[in-house]
């Protein structure tokens, strides 16, 4: 009997996303990443005695955008609560968060899985402040002192808690991908897992297929990339499966993903779990969110990934695959629509973006939209191909240069003399030389080996550095040989 199929995997994710507001959640300090330690601090975010928090309304707006984009209902009366615990990176001894009345609840994220699309429910989205960061001398274990950097302390975060609707590590990754895509579309975070602007914890359990009751879960922390999430969950699922298969019991605990060992390790048990003693934050008034404001938020939502994908498919008659790739990032979709808007063939534009553009983006390791290419420039490049001014091989060169320097394709072609040689006299001379230099190939052609023409065309292209019009070269070679 195959034991490994008798359990169903149940995963829920808790994702923290740093909001890209200019200032922190409760004070005027800059929320920018990467400054000198403690440069972005003030009496309020350092929790000095007597200071008070004041809500950053832009952060609230960002959080509402996320909540509405994920189809959440909004608690029109909501409030902040204090989560109490001691840690050196927590200046007040409590974190201002939201407990029983989160900003948004009951939402969903649509993911693409192997079996088509699937909705993952969202339990809640709430707004809270980030803690500072500890910098250890050596490792946490053997360090005899640590430094605290409070630049991050007080930066706004949203916590997005999914329902236990995720059924595999692959789905977990797809969920994160969809969530990140949605948030990038909203422009409220850069979702950079390495820099910590997106963090993910997971609750994992197994239950016999057909069982409704959840099994005992473990919480997995410290996963620093999408790949790490997928691997850590795969590991944890297998670990739990082995425990259950050997008639053991899964222990409710928090486990940490060890990237080096590629294992989850026990961090603390249930009985060591902290009591955070949540209570309403008395320094902030409860929030009253009006229907008018929610309507305003809804009206300001951009076109979201799935909508955009469907529209591109229909409006431009694109294959689903193309529409999916192009809408992966809103900047790529924007380039696409800009170029198509210049009267270009949608499929042709799509091919260039999916091919050369994304290849260069990956090669240069930059974010889409940050290259110098614009839709207009892509369109003028396609014009040059269409009109036979340049060959598609040369076009790739030109594309790369426009991508890097932002220079107009026509200018590049002009400057570097990349115009296709379509002049019969000019090309005729070159061909005469090539034919003279390659008697063997000529002989082959005469003997009916047409393949040898390809070789000669190749020689012409080499000689002209790719500028010869290949069709014309082919024709002229045949004529030249026939004349001899």
């Amino acid at each position, binding site marked *: 009997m195959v034991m490994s199929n008798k359990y169903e995997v149940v995963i829920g994710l808790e994702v923290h996303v740093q909001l890209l507001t200019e200032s922190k959640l409760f004070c005027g300090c800059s929320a920018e990443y990467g400054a000198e330690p403690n440069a972005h601090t003030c009496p309020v975010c350092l929790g000095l005695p007597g200071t008070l928090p004041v809500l950053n309304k832009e952060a609230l707006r960002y959080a509402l955008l996320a909540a509405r984009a994920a189809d959440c209902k909004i608690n029109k009366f909501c409030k902040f609560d204090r989560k109490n615990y*001691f840690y050196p990176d927590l*200046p007040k001894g409590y974190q201002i968060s939201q407990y029983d009345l989160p900003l948004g609840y009951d939402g969903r994220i649509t993911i693409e899985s192997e079996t088509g699309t699937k909705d993952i429910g969202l339990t809640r989205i709430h707004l809270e402040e980030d803690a500072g960061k500890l910098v250890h001398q050596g490792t946490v274990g053997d360090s005899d002192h640590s430094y605290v950097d409070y630049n991050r302390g007080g930066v706004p975060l949203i916590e997005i808690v999914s329902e236990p609707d995720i059924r595999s590590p692959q789905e977990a990754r797809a969920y994160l991908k969809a969530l990140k895509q949605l948030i990038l579309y909203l422009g409220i975070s850069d979702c950079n897992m390495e820099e910590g602007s997106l963090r993910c914890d997971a609750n994992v359990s197994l239950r016999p297929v057909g069982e409704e009751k959840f099994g005992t879960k473990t919480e997995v922390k410290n996963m620093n990339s999408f790949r790490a999430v997928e691997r850590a969950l795969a590991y944890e699922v297998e670990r739990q499966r082995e425990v259950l298969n050997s008639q053991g019991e899964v222990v409710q605990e928090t486990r940490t993903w060890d990237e080096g060992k590629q294992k989850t390790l026990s961090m603390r048990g249930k009985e060591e779990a902290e009591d955070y003693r949540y209570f309403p934050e008395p*320094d902030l008034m409860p929030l009253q969110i009006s229907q008018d404001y929610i309507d305003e938020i809804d009206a300001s939502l951009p076109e979201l990934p799935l909508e955009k994908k469907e529209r591109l498919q229909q409006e431009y008659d694109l294959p689903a695959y193309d529409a999916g790739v192009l809408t992966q990032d809103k900047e790529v979709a924007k380039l696409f629509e800009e170029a198509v808007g210049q009267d270009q063939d949608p499929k042709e534009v799509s091919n260039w973006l999916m091919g050369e553009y994304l290849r260069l983006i990956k090669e240069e390791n930059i974010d889409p939209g940050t290259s110098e290419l614009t839709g207009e420039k892509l369109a003028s490049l396609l014009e040059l191909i269409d009109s036979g001014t340049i060959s598609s091989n040369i076009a790739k060169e030109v594309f790369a240069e426009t991508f890097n320097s932002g220079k107009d394709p026509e200018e590049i072609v002009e400057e570097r003399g990349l115009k296709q040689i379509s002049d019969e006299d000019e090309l005729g001379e070159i061909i005469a030389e090539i034919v003279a230099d390659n008697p063997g190939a000529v002989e082959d052609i005469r003997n009916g080996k047409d393949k040898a023409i390809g070789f000669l065309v190749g020689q012409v292209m080499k000689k002209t550095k790719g500028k010869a019009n290949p069709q014309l070269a082919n024709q002229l070679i045949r004529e030249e040989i026939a004349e001899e």
Partner: protein
Amino acid sequence: MNIYEMTLAQLIAAREEKELKPEEILAAFAERTAAVEDKVASFVDIIPDFASKEDQENGILQGIPVALKANMATRELTTSCASKMLAEYKTPYESTVASKIKKEGGAIVAKTNMDEFAMGSTTEHSALQTTKNPWNLNHVPGGSSGGAAAAVAAGEVPCALGSDTGGSIRQPASFCGVVGLKPTYGVVSRYGLVAFASSLDQIGPIARTVEDAALMLNIISGHDEKDSTSAAMEYPDYRQGLDKDLAGLTFGLPGSYLEMDIDEEVKSKVQKAVREIKEAGAEVKEIELPPVDLALAAYYIIATAEASSNLARYDGVRYGAREEAGNVMEMFAKTRSKNLGPEVKRRIMLGTYALSAGYQDELYKKALKVRTIIKDKYAQVFEEVDLILGPNSPTPAFKLGEDKNPLDVYYADIFTVPVNISGFPALSLPAGFTEQGLPLSVQLIGPAFGEVKLLQAARGLEKRLAVPTLATLDQGR
């Protein structure tokens, strides 16, 4: 008359009439302070030689020395909260009240002693020094704003600011025979007030007359964007009703309070006030208020719960005291064990318990419900009366060093805490003295944001009671 004997209003008038120069006023209070501070010990930090303080702005308080309770942030003087934890601590920023006083030209010359982190009713819980009652140096000044009340009663400053979480302005004002006002929650910005219980704390003036309290309230009140709980509204001139007297006002008297087991002399002063009010042509109506023990229980749960969280920041990491230890958790524990006093620890533990999983519903959440009931009940009473008259402290000032059960001390707050629970304004008005010469008071309570009427009534009654408010600094009889 000596300059230090003058009230704030008199000093301002004399300066405006050019009878007194700002520096003369400052010099007179500096001299008085030098003469009596050794006996009273009101101040935990003081600007040395403040008579020569020259950096004041032009304003209504120019030349006026003001003392702030040691839990209000100022750059120049320590904000110690009378705790070992913050003994030498100066904030790099200024509280809103301090900025407002400076803007009006006032000279913040000293920080006053208090019960550590404002937790106590005698100022004996100060980790720094023992303040004495200027009317009888063997007695306590009350607390927690004991230093502020004592300094005003002793003539060291014409006015001071205290903070009131459960009676911490009114009770020491009562013990020291001066006027103490706790404004409506939200009228005075809490920015820069080191928090004890955020939803209850309110800053207010301690002065020798009702007019002086109104004057100070005009200066320190107002909406503050730095305090989200500060009231956004039009702020009135709090002196506008002072000449109106009592006629036409309706006072509510909670008769049951006077049947309780409280000091007979305290009761008699309330009764005397009732007679004066009636004689002045105002009405006194019997009213019923929610049981005081209910409010007291709710208060001690809410206040300690908030305190347990508010005081978590004193962990030795960023400022204040730090004890060395092998790891960070030990450092936290050692720092807090050694540098927080017993009363503070008691309340942190009570509050931590009240918020703990499994107890929170029975304690903290129930207390919040009680709070709502009390608030509603008070609001109902104010539909029928303009003000409530009643006792303030159930006793005159305790003797210094009396061995007291903490619960008995908490019980001394029964008449003051309901007002913090409900957020309403209340004032302690000097009403005379005990046979031993210790000050006694009555408490007037107004509806939310009803300070104008509250001050009007207090002024009317003050005139009729005509009680001296400057202590003689005798050893008592």
